[in-house]
Structure formats: structure tokens, C-alpha cells
């Protein structure tokens, strides 16, 4: 099982208030967050969920306090009834920004600074109790730099992406992702087809719910699947054994009449650009680069030898060594290419069995052609879930599926999500709310009638 302690090389979530960032624990490597720079060495060996403060550029563990509105010293401070006499001016606070910076430099604790701010506030005593709590909470947020290290989960990663870069994930809000995973019945031993352009967040979420079992076939646009989010999860290598990829631009060759001859694939130009399932490590990028640079490198080597001597390669032993190395390089490339073609053919066979347990589509592309092309490979009585940032493409997909037949319980839905502030005598929905989290089209496949039958 997963270790509850923070270890080096793990991808973790660094959190300050509502701000999340994925970082890797690397000794002596500093990270930046909210204008503060520090190393993560101080976290190693502590449990996930621990809180830390920055001291001299290092993280030091602190006991987290779970009452942001309270200091514990205000018991004796008086309070007012309402703000009828409150004047909002800069003179209310006697400490200047320079004073505070100086205090911080001296090493005064954040809590202490907040206490000083209260002492030097002309109006604090006249504020209502609630206003005082709000004031303390606000000052603490500003002056206490407490960082928490969390284990990455779908819930936190989705929130992070939605808050910081929603366009990366097609505006997929947490409730929409939650519905997708449930409606698609993602669970252990399931075989799921995924088409997504959400930087791998859906793939990661499905992998989390599969727990290393089952099968994923991810269809990707371009030359390689984007799985940036998957890296954050620290999945063990075994989770990738049944992870397969298939290029979207070859989906039309999956039809009933297509050839399964590997030679046909080679001539289709399914060459160096292939990148079937692989564990996303830092070696990925260079490997792909090598493959693409092979022809260039060959040219470069030839040029070099010609420049050097102007004579035939075999004229002296040094040159023949270079030639042998070059030949080995080309052979290795060919091997790699052949193995990738073989992998692609294996994935093709998996898909064409036509007994996948579900289809999830969540991309920036028109869903209808994708769904119409892939739904035949889903077994009967299985869910299909199509997400779109907009409802028009889903309405179109709905009508096309109705025409096609073979799908029951077609429903288009969206979920409405609202957060609440719950405090004694101050409970109300929060002031800001998300306006949209996308739409879903769901349905259940069934066997289609044979032609001639009703």
C-alpha cells in the first residue's frame, strides 16, 4: 500500500490556502510559491497532510491550527455592536508596511505580527465580534505562510486545474468529473475507452478508480497522448501494463472492412510518430526526439566523415568504426519502429473485439463523429458518457444516436454546484459561484436489431 510518509522523488501537492501546485520532492531543489522560495527537504519523512512554515528558505514542520478566525488572545478585547461610527481610513492602522517588513526580517512570527496589527488598530475594539474574526482571518492569511503537503488525488488535481487553468481541461468542473466517473461505472476490472483533451486528468481519474486493474484504451489526437496530469498521481509501473493508446487519426481504419495486415499499416505512414503506451518518465521526450532526429543525424554523420577526409568510409579503421556505430543506430531505430507497429496492432485487436465496458469522450473536438466511430466497439448494456463544454454538440450527438438506435436512456444533463459558508449566525451561500461546469450526454448501449427486424 502507499506509504503515508513523504518520500523523495514523489510528486506531491503543495498547498497554501486554496492555492495548489504539483511539485516533485527533490533534495536541495528550491520551489517557488506565492513569491516565497524554499526547499522541500524538510518535508521528507513526515506524514502527508503535515503543515510547514518557511524558515530560512527551508520548510519546518508546524502543528497546524484549524481555527483561522481565532488567535486565542482576544478574550479580553472589547467589541462593538455595529459599524455605524466606523470610518474607513488608512490612519486606522498605525503600523506601516515598512514596519511589518522589518518585523518579518527580525523573525517575528506571523501570529505575533497579527497581534501587533490588532494592538495598533484604532478601530478593532469597535468592530463587531464577527468583523473581528473576519479581520483576524484576513491578516492571518496574509502574514502566516503555512504550506501543506498533500497526496495528489483526482479531487485535488481537478480543483487545481479548474481554478488555475480550466481551458486545459475543457472547463471540466469537479462535479462534472464526478458524474462522468460514476455514470461510466468506472471500477476495478473494467475496460474503458477514453477520448480526452484534458491533459490526462480523465485518464488519471479512471486509473485511480481502476486501481491498477482493467484496461484503458486512450485515443489521442496528434502524435502522442498528453498525460501531464497522470504523472502527478505517482502510480506504480504495474498500473501501466494495461494502458494502451491508439491515434485518433487511425480510428477510421478500425471499421469492419479494414485490413489488419501490419504491412498495410507501415505503408499508411504509421511510422516514427507513434508513441503507444509508455510509462511517462523524463526519458520520454528525448526518446521521441531521437526517433525523429534519426534521419537528420544520419545526414550529419555522413557530412562529418566526408568533410574529414573526402575519402571512402572504409579507407581507415576509425571511419569503419563510425560506420558500424551508424549502422547499429539505424538498426535500433528499425527495431523500435517494428515494436511500436506491433504494439499498435495489439491495441487494434483489443478494440476490434468489440467488448469494451464503456466509452468516455471529453474533448475539444466535435463529439458526434468520435462517438459514431467508437460506439460499435462497446459491448451491449454498457454506459457511454460524453462531456462537452457546450450543449450544442451534445444535442447534435443525441439526435444522431437516436437515429442510429442501439442506445437507451439517452440523457443530457448538467450539474449545478454551490458552496456554502457555514458559521454560527453567518451561514449563507458563498458570494462567488461557478457559472458552468460543462454538460453530459449519457446512455446505455444495447444490441442493435439485425437488418429486416424491427
Amino acid at each position, binding site marked *: *500500500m502507499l506509504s*503515508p510518509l513523504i518520500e523523495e522523488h514523489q510528486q506531491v501537492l503543495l498547498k497554501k490556502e486554496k492555492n495548489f501546485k504539483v511539485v516533485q520532492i527533490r533534495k536541495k531543489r528550491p520551489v517557488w510559491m506565492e513569491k516565497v522560495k524554499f526547499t522541500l527537504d524538510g518535508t521528507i519523512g513526515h*506524514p*502527508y*497532510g*503535515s*503543515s510547514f512554515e518557511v524558515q530560512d528558505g527551508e520548510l519546518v514542520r508546524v502543528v497546524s491550527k*484549524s481555527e483561522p478566525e481565532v488567535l486565542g488572545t482576544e478574550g479580553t478585547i472589547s467589541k462593538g455592536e455595529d459599524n455605524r461610527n466606523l470610518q474607513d481610513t488608512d490612519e486606522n492602522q498605525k503600523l506601516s508596511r515598512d514596519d511589518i517588513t522589518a518585523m518579518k526580517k527580525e523573525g517575528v512570527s506571523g501570529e505575533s505580527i497579527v497581534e501587533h496589527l490588532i494592538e495598533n488598530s484604532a478601530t478593532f475594539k469597535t468592530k463587531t465580534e464577527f468583523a473581528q474574526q473576519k479581520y483576524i482571518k484576513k491578516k492571518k492569511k496574509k502574514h502566516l505562510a503555512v504550506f*501543506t503537503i498533500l497526496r495528489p*488525488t*483526482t*479531487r485535488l488535481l481537478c480543483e487545481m486545474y479548474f481554478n488555475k487553468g480550466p481551458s486545459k481541461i475543457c472547463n471540466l468542473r469537479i*462535479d462534472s468529473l*464526478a*458524474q462522468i*466517473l*460514476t*455514470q461510466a*461505472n468506472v*471500477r*476495478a*476490472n*473494467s475496460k474503458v475507452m477514453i477520448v480526452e483533451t484534458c491533459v490526462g486528468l480523465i485518464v488519471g481519474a479512471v486509473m*485511480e*478508480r*481502476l*486501481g*491498477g*486493474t482493467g484496461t484503458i484504451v486512450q485515443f489521442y489526437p496528434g502524435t502522442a497522448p498528453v498525460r501531464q496530469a497522470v504523472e502527478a498521481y505517482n502510480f506504480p509501473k504495474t498500473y501501466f501494463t494495461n494502458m494502451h493508446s491508439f491515434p485518433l487519426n487511425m480510428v477510421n481504419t478500425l471499421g469492419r472492412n479494414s485490413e489488419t495486415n501490419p504491412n498495410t499499416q507501415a505503408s499508411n505512414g504509421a511510422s516514427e510518430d507513434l508513441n503507444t503506451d509508455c510509462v511517462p518518465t523524463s526519458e520520454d521526450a528525448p526518446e521521441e526526439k531521437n526517433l525523429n532526429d534519426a534521419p537528420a543525424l544520419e545526414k550529419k554523420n555522413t557530412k562529418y566523415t566526408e568533410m574529414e577526409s573526402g575519402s571512402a568510409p572504409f579507407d581507415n579503421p576509425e571511419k569503419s568504426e563510425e560506420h558500424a556505430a551508424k549502422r547499429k543506430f539505424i538498426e535500433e531505430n528499425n527495431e523500435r519502429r517494428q515494436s511500436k507497429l506491433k504494439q499498435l496492432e495489439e491495441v487494434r485487436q483489443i478494440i476490434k473485439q468489440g*467488448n469494451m465496458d464503456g466509452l468516455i469522450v471529453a474533448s475539444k473536438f466535435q463529439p458526434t463523429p468520435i462517438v459514431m466511430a467508437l460506439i460499435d466497439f462497446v*459491448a*451491449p*448494456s*454498457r*454506459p457511454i458518457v460524453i462531456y462537452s463544454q457546450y*450543449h450544442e454538440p451534445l*444535442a*447534435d450527438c*443525441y*439526435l444522431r444516436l437516436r*437515429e442510429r438506435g442501439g442506445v*437507451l*436512456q439517452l440523457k*443530457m*444533463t*448538467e*450539474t*449545478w*454546484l*454551490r*458552496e*456554502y459558508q*457555514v458559521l*454560527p449566525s453567518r*451561514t449563507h451561500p458563498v458570494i462567488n459561484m461557478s457559472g458552468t461546469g460543462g*454538460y453530459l450526454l449519457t446512455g*446505455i448501449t*444495447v*444490441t442493435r*436489431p439485425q437488418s429486416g427486424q424491427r
Partner: protein
Amino acid sequence: MNFRHKIALQKHIFCTVEVNMSFENYKDNIEEDDIVILYLGHDYMLPLKVKKGETYQTKFGALRHNDLIGMKYGSKVNAARGWLYVLHPTAELWTQNLPHRTQILYSTDISMIVFQLDLRPGSVVVESGTGSASLSHALIRTIAPTGHLYTFEFHQQRAEKAAAEFKEHGLDRLVTVAHRDVCESGFDLIQVADAVFLDLPKPWEVLASSKQALKLEGGRICSFSPCIEQTQKTCEVLQEQGFSDITTMECLLRTFDIRMVNIPEADLGQAECEPNVDAGQSSMSKNSQSEEPMEVSSKVAKVQTLSKKEYKGLSAAIDPKRSDRNALVKSAVPQGQMPGHTGFLTFATLYPA
């Protein structure tokens, strides 16, 4: 019941056993003792336990169980007066079609709960109250095959019914049902759970015990309450008990009907010096002018059962020369009614000490 003993047992069970029950894993064909879901129409489904020799009367005619055995899931079955489909059971279909013994949680809230509690295969969950086991089925689906659900119900018959149901569905090895009032006696579980879920009238009474039940490395908790007062009290006590990241939210489902709607053009009269084009109107377009849009769309409501070809025919019948705007418009129409409230979902994290 000694839970600590049970926990010790669980750790040594390797769950690579192939279970034949259709609730836990997908299978291709129907077998005797399977629970299947009969689909009779949109949002009209019934659960059925397949038993050799039995017959089930549907509105379309008699359905012989023997005919179902060996059939592929998702097949169409013809009956005397119509047809139906036989679907594979899932937690979601069960939620939609289970016999209600209490008010239940529906898939919208269930999805958020499972998501927010970070559940996955292997998770250990504590739940109270079991109720009609709607959420229980979804939890088991997510934590299988290596996780476990401890579910507590203070109503004896409901606890027994739930236990019987789990057994019938082939899920009993993944769940332990206890008849107990947890507000009075607590869970009696020490540091075993990754997550706790509460759907109780007074959840704050069991927060201390929930804290004890959660693992040392921490975990997640969720409390579902219909009333704001319950939510306020729960949040207060969660804070006192040392839980963090306390968040309360609501999640509601909006469903859309996708259909062609008729939005006719109003007659704005003739411009001066233009021939009267209204003279040669078809009777269809005359009707669509005088009727209220509402009445027309109720006529058009029948349109959704027409084929694409018939849609085109219908729009052509409305005089195209009058304008280049097609009166028939494809629209995603929100339903007239939507759920306004189910309950407030409060989530929190227990961090390690």
C-alpha cells in the same frame, strides 16, 4: 460482533477470486440467480431475479425466465404485445429501481460523495445509516474487490433487509452490516477507515467516534443533512474535533430535453407597394400563425418520435417562401421542474496528528 477480528481477517484475504455475480463484475450472458434490469421504456425499468421455471408478467406480455438464461445482456426480448431490453445491473440502475425503504440518495449526490471521499479499490469506508442501501451499493462498487464497507443501521428490519440484499447480490464478502445506534454506542472501530459517511438526524453526536474510526494517517468524512441547522451544528463540532478543510456544498441535476421546437414567425403585416404574399398560404401555416406557441409545441412534442426525413417534410410544409428562417429549431430545453434541494453535503479532512 467483533470488528477488530473481522479487520484482521480482511487483511489476509487475497481477492483475486473470480466472482460470478453480475453486480460486481461485468459478464456477457445472463445466468440463473442474476439480478437483471428489465427496460420497458424511458425511465421505466424493473429489477428481476432470474429463476428457472418462473414467469414474470410485464405490461407487454409474459416473460419466461428460462428464455433469459443464456441470453446476452443488452438483448432485445420480444413479448406478446411489445418488446423490452434486458440490462446488466449496475449501482446506478439499482439506485433508480430499488425498492425504497427510506428516502434514498440519488446518483448526483452519490457521485459527489464518492469523488470527494477519494474512494478507490481497496478503500475502507464506514457508513451510517444504511437506509435502503442505495449509496451502499455505489460505495461497494468503487472499493471492490479489495476494500470493505462497514455499514450501520439502527432499524432492525432495515438492517436485516440490507444484509439479505447484499448476499443476494453476491456482495456480502465486501460489506459488514450492523444493527446499531451509532449515536448512542459509536462505531467501535479503531483506525481502520479511509472515509466515513454520515446520513443521520444528529451527525455531530458521532463525530468523535468517526474520528477514532479513521486511520492514523488521516482520512475524509462526509455528512449529508437536509436541514441547514443540522449542517451548522455538524460544522461546529467538526471544527471542535480538529477536522480541517470543512466545506459545505449542494449539487443539483438539471436535465434537458432535446427536441425540435416550432417557433413560428409572427405576421408583421405587408410593407407598402408589395404584392400580398399571404393570399396563397397553406392551411398549415395559417394555423401556426393563430395558435399560441405553447399549443403548437405540444403538437410538435409528437414530432420527436418522427424520423429525420419526416422532420424535413414538416418544415417544408411551412411555407418556405415567407422567410428564410426555419420555424423548426433544434433546442436543448431544460425541463420544467428540477430538483431544488436534496441535502447539504459537508466534507472535511482529518490530517494526521
